[in-house]
């Protein structure tokens, strides 16, 4: 579709990743007091990646499995580090999710009054980091983007967060850094043991790393591969977060301001699973196969344990946070089965959970802004007072419990279809997660929206236009993909099949 091209194919990804950075610089140059300007600059700059992501989504050739929209340039010659970006179907969906959620989060952050300059500048820096991770094809570049994200996140939680924000911020930072340094060692080891097919030297090129023919004899040793796999896996698993590395999540998600929780749950968690798909699986496929059973079991633990803990929460945001642990478990289970249905389900679940959990956090934020608490037991009967809000929230909740017709169902169903053939027991146990999930969702729905109205909230205003603007686009996607998932499935299908072919049986 030539009419849709805003910028050329080769420079699109670069613009997309760095326009937010330019926006951040512009915001820093603005005077501290001009709050309105900060917001509008942020909104405009966040709109650019979204438009470009839409162009990417529409013009991406779904039939070819390879990398598209790629650009390659020399960066550090002596160490063969390159600026190498490009996308396949897996990354395009993540890029779209990131650009969309970032844009909507800027709208959702409109009410921020404290130090808007820093807030929006950091937010845009964060967006650059996230987009960069999803488009990098040079491992060094990938790592730099991966780490660049940490700092804005630390400050966004630590300055604009809730009462225990300092603790949550440093905990998040330490956990993630712990994972990343393991990844750093693994990536250095890979560098020294992968031969650049063109020059014969060492390389950080991820595509070269994915081809076993380039691996050195040392790297082909299965013990080494298993250890490297585990190093990378732990780095990514902390982000997902996979049990037992999940304990940073409830703190960070609960203490972060609404928009940052959305980004955390909607995008950052996906970085972990994306990393496994992009790095662990193609580079060390045999080790991935070796680790499949533990991963399936970890996925099941995530599903059931996350759901059980969510059930016990009295704080809405905490409940949503733990539901993320549970839902990311489906992704892990899907990734562990090594068939098309499982992989597709995992990818679908990544995209859909990103949307659904974003909506849930936005909705929790709306009520928190009005009442300044999130205790489930403190509400009741909101349906009568805030009908529009309640229906949006209910839609998100039903999507979260996997109601057919909404997008949450598609991913989960595919994961189960794929997994049942391979691990029957684990799948059946995971099925419990659906039941518990339905229980905590419905129970919360009942306590918050039904029953008698708490007289304190007689005068609660319904959801405002701005708040609607941030949530309704996601609601539309949730419904659309629930009824008609092919837009995403077609996008990822070829890339996933290609990945599967790469992994030995």
């Amino acid at each position, binding site marked *: 579709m030539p009419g849709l091209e805003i910028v050329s194919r080769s420079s699109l990804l670069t613009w997309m990743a760095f326009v937010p950075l330019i926006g951040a610089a512009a915001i820093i140059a603005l005077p501290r007091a001009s709050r309105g300007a900060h917001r509008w600059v942020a909104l405009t700059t966040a709109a650019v990646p979204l438009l470009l992501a839409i162009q990417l989504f529409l013009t991406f050739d779904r039939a070819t499995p390879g990398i598209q929209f790629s650009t390659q340039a020399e960066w550090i010659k002596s160490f063969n580090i390159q600026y190498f970006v490009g996308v396949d179907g897996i990354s395009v969906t993540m890029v779209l999710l990131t650009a969309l959620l970032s844009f909507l989060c800027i709208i959702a952050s409109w009410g921020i009054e404290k130090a808007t300059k820093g807030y929006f500048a950091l937010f845009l820096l964060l967006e650059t980091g996230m987009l960069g991770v999803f488009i990098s094809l040079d491992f060094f570049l990938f790592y730099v983007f991966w780490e660049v994200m940490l700092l804005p996140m630390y400050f966004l939680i630590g300055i604009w967060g809730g009462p225990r924000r300092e603790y949550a911020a440093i905990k998040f930072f330490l956990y993630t850094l*712990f994972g990343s340094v393991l990844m*750093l060692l693994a990536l250095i*080891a890979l560098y020294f043991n992968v031969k650049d097919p063109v020059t014969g030297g060492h390389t950080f090129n991820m595509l070269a790393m994915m081809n076993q023919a380039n691996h050195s004899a040392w790297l082909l040793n299965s013990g080494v591969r298993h250890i490297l796999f585990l190093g990378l896996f732990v780095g990514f698993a902390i982000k997902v977060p996979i049990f037992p590395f999940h304990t940073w999540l409830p703190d960070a998600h609960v203490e972060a301001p609404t928009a940052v929780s959305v980004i955390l749950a909607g995008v950052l968690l996906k970085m972990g699973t994306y990393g496994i798909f992009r790095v662990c699986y193609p580079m060390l496929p045999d080790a991935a196969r070796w680790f499949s059973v533990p991963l399936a079991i970890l996925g099941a633990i995530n599903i059931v344990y996350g759901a059980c803990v969510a059930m016990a929460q009295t704080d809405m945001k905490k409940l949503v946070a733990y539901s993320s642990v549970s839902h990311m478990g489906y992704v892990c289970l899907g990734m562990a089965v090594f068939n098309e249905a499982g992989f597709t389900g995992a990818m679908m679940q990544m995209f859909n959970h990103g949307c659904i959990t974003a909506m849930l956090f936005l909705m929790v934020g709306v009520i928190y802004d009005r009442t300044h608490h999130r205790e489930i037991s403190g509400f009741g009967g909101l349906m009568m007072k805030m009908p529009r809000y309640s229906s949006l929230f209910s839609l998100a909740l039903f999507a979260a419990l996997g109601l057919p017709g909404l997008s949450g169902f598609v991913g989960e169903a595919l994961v189960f279809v794929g997994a049942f053939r391979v691990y029957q027991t684990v799948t059946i146990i995971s099925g419990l997660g659906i039941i518990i999930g339905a229980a905590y969702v419905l129970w919360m729905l009942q306590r918050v929206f039904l029953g008698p109205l708490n007289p304190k909230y007689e005068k609660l205003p319904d959801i405002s236009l701005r708040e609607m603007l941030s949530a309704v686009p996601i609601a539309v996607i949730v419904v659309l993909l629930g009824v008609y998932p092919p837009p995403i499935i077609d996008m990822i299908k070829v890339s996933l099949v290609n990945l599967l072919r790469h992994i030995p049986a």
Partner: protein
Amino acid sequence: MNLRWSDTVYFLPEAVMALTFVVCVVLDIIARGRRNRLTVLALWSGTVLSLALALADPPRGSHPIFGQMVVVDPFAHFFRVLFLIVTMLVTAMSYSSREIMGEDREHKGEYYSFLAALCFGMMVMAESTDLLMLVLSIELVSVISYIMAGYARFSLRSTEASLKYVLYGSVSSGVMLFGAAIFFGLTGQTGFVAISAKLAALPAQQTGLALLVATLFVLAGIGYKISAVPFHFWTPDVYEGSPTPITALFAAGPKAAGFALLIRFFYTTLVQQTHGVEGLRVVEQIQWPWLLALMSAVTMTYGNLAALRQQNIKRMLAYSSIAHVGYLLMGFVLLTEAGLQAILFYLIVYAIMNLGAFLVVIALNNRVGSEDIDDYAGLSSREPLVAVAMTIFLLSLTGLPPTAGFIGKFYLFAAVVKSGMWWLALLGVMNSVISLYYYMRIPKAMYFASTQETGGLGLARAHIVILVLLALPVVLLGLYWSPFKAMADESLRRLLWG
């Protein structure tokens, strides 16, 4: 020993610094300690002249001069440029520090003349190729360091620091001298190259124990200079007690000089270069890489763990500097080219980020007169630029991209991984994670905590300019570092391959 006049050509930058010292002293006597501006100007122009001379004619090969007492080669050149730049920066930092230039301070002129002498000493340290010069240059640097640590005479902390420094310093110097004596006894030579040749001729059984003891003793002397565990005990007290600009200098200057000496001494005296990784052939029964690796591991872990509990930022940075010595030693342990290149690159980065951090400490100290981490509360709203710069320095010290500190650490870890010493690399990265916790305490105070204090710190414009000049390269070198890396690599080539 034959001395030639032509030798002095290579020694001009050093000679200029020695002359600067004299000029500063004379100027100070003439001005009777009042018109310090003139002394500072003399020091500044001397340093600039020396730097210009050094850069105008960089040595292309190895020039052993003064009867092979010192050598001017690219390796020494790299360090002398580093020292001159550090001295210039520290001069500027001292000038803006109330601890040095406050109304009630005395002997300000003298202070600057000592800076010149210290710079000269460090330059010679990196050039020594003889046991006599080694001892002499270390002593020169040490004695001036003792004086400078105690510069604030009326401050109890400063006096205590100076005394501790003297006690520890003289003991280690004595031990090192003893080691040097054994070397002389074994070989009858004092020149590094001559010792190396003699040692190669001696059978291992004859030299075994004596050589081990001698090497360990010299290592102790240098270890004290770079504050590696277990020779580090003076560091926290001296760093805390000394006036801040001097602490900054100690962290960036003599430490780098110590590493220069360490590398040169081990490489020209003890390592047979054909042996590569297993190159230390001194005492074959002892696993040198393991011994050094242990030292590196203990140094970084101890430094980081001890830094966790500090409440005084200078003390914290002192322990952090010990930790960084541990990281730097990782590159030395392997005795590979990649490792040494990583050390040199890291020394540049380390100097920049440390000077930057200490510059912020000076700014705070000028205003509140203390160095408690709690004093940093709410700094972000009072001095946003300073807070951002400090955050950049601390991130770089932690080793997070996109800062120079990350690149430096990346090369060190890469060198370790390449040699297959996995446990050390793993310990190194885990230490980075630990260090994040205490470094982040300062941004936490600056950004998350609030304060009753309002208004800026009243910084001089020059202070801000230097701060920006230090913060920018930390970020820029994190994005593009090829030229600096090439420079570091190039200066080693001659040392290693003749």
